[in-house]
């Protein structure tokens, strides 16, 4: 019973942690959209705009990555620790 509860908690927690993927999705989409506009306006600045956009996307991605790493920890590491404590 306790085992089941622990595993259930970890699985639900991992699912909740991956909700963090929404934010970067919206943010990166917005950044890419804006850079498309910028390239359409000034096609000669394509290289600069693209590299700045990629860097911005990478930074916007950070929160999503935190959520993903938390999810991974909850799925692969946490059950071992918590089951060991029982």
């Amino acid at each position, binding site marked *: 019973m306790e085992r089941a509860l622990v595993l259930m908690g970890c699985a639900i927690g991992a699912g909740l942690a991956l909700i963090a993927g929404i934010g970067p999705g919206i943010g990166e989409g917005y950044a890419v959209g804006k850079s498309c506009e910028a390239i359409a306006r000034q096609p000669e600045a394509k290289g600069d705009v693209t*590299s700045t956009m*990629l*860097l911005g996307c*990478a930074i916007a*991605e*950070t929160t999503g*990555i*935190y959520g*993903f*790493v938390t999810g*991974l920890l909850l799925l*692969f590491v946490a059950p071992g620790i918590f089951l060991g404590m029982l």
Partner: protein
Amino acid sequence: MEISINGAPVYFTLDVFGGIPISATLVVTWAIMLLLTGLCIWMTRDLKVAGISKKQAVAEFLVTTAENFVNNNMGPKWSRYIPFIAALFALSLCSSLSSLLGLFAPTADLSTELAWAIVVFIMITGTKIRSGGVGGYLKGFTKPIFILTPFNIISELATPISMAFRHFGNIISGTVISTLVYAALATANRALFGLLPGLVGDLLGEIPFLSVGVPAVLSLYFDWFSSFMQAFIFCMLTMMYIATAAEDG
């Protein structure tokens, strides 16, 4: 259906300093470092001013690219960082791409990125202290007002952690998703050919026909694009943090 995602396997433990585990990460990293060093030595053999060989042309192209990369992003006065940034880029790229050879990618182990991020963090702190002195460095934490000191310390410590986790997360997510896709394709394959009657269906179901081709597209994104992207971003962030650290002081 068995799906397993493992960390770096530990081959053996050295009995010094309380036991140092020799894992796949260490072995592959050293192999890549030897490879890169050997490549550098081989490529810079008998350089000429005129009538250069193809090998020297490639070497010159690589060096020029690295110089332009650093000079465009940090400015010409930071040219002493060119070797460091180029080495970091090459190590990161080769580490990520080593998964294509079926080796354990050292970048799929958080220790690797954390080590790089700590090196970069020390360089950032060093640059700050050099440009503003120890007093100026410590005073920088109390800006803009004194109450924000704890938050400044947290944001300072978050720099290496977020750099390490960004690189690690991107590489490991590729590994996890490819593993899941392979498992899903094998299951779909079994279900599809299981529709055939009798022994023929069972036999054909065991041969992963669907695993041919489809994962190649994923590999193109996760291995090639992502590896290159993360190496680029890690170096880019390193350069920007160091350049900003000098300006702040």
